[in-house]
């Protein structure tokens, strides 16, 4: 099966910022992303959990597969949103099927 080199960018960010992040991704030319729920976690700002929360509490995980050459522009766009906020960004090398989609 023919696969193509890609980058998998994963951003764990506060839920109230989700819309701003996905708008920034779209503005940076990303063709797609997937939002995953997060149950809880721990970091420098302490431990938290989604249990019983009513508001837009907690974090979400946004995963984005992109062509490698787009990575730098994308990271700049992400950083502009994440900079002042709680959140973690990681990048992994990946291969994808159907390169024409990215």
């Amino acid at each position, binding site marked *: 099966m023919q696969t193509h080199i890609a980058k998998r960018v994963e951003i764990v960010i*506060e*839920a*109230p910022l989700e819309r*701003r992040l996905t708008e920034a991704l779209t503005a940076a030319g990303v063709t797609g992303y997937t939002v995953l729920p997060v149950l809880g976690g721990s970091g420098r700002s302490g431990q938290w959990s989604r*249990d*019983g*929360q*009513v508001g837009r*509490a907690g974090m979400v995980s946004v995963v984005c597969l992109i062509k490698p050459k787009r990575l730098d522009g994308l990271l700049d766009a992400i950083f502009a949103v994440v900079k002042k*906020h709680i959140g973690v960004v990681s990048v992994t090398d990946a291969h994808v099927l159907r390169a024409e989609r990215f």
Partner: protein
Amino acid sequence: MIEILSLAGANLISPIILSFALGLLAALARSDLTIPEAVAKGMSIYLLFAIGFKGGVAVSAHGIDQTLVLALLAGLVLSFTLPLLAFGLLRVLTGLSAVDAAAVAAHYGSISIVTFVAATSVLQGRMISSEGYMVAVAAVMEAPAILSALWLVARSGGEARMEPGLIRELLLNGSIVLLVGAFFIGAITGEKGFAEISAFIEAPFKGVLCLFLLDMGLIAGRGLRQSRGVLGLGAVGFAIAMPLVSALLGLGVGALIGLSLGGIVLMMVLCASASYIAVPAAMRVALPEANPAIYLTLSLGVTFPFNLTLGIPLYLAIAQAVTGA
């Protein structure tokens, strides 16, 4: 005084308060009792819909009296100005930074709808009627305080992100839309609509409120456990003094514009209560540097239980004394 205490005592042993206490204790004892997020959200949607709807039905029954506009206006002004008062108090009582103080101030200018709901249920238990449109006043008081807080930060030389999307987000916030929407549905369909769905809106209301307060207790307890040591005595003092002062302001304004006894109590409760749903999310967007542990612990961990247990009966007793009812 003895009356107030006995009133407070009677309030304290209601299933509603005890459910909150159960949640608080369970969380402090590190029980793994939790309410699923979806269930908690479902209950809050139910409560907002029911309280809004009932308010609308009440308005359709009694008509719009001339104080409606005054009450809405008063709510607006109070929500804009209470943060200034809170900010001042915080700067005197605590060593919080300007940004943290402004963030806390935003919470106390806004309102807690659950405290409002608990107060309506105490009034109902005492057969004291109130203006149905007070839920509209509650809706009006949710957002303005946030703008005042951002102005406070900007004035202190801080950076507050007042981006275009924020205002729309605040005004079209889910809980405001649901509360106001249900209010209009109630006002339009009136007693006939109420008859159709009262078995859903009215009968199970207090029971759902119990489970919801159990959840609030769990969250407040978890917060208190995790933020031990974050708050000084001054901050805790603020979280009790501020609702008292705000309630008195609400009393004055309510009496001035001619609200009924029940309406005055609800106005006091709106002023005294602090947001812990809409405002925290807005703060994460607009004032990310402010520490959430501070404002959440104060509003949900101190002021919310205070209002729920002692505050509401106290405000009621004061209002009764002042209005002579």
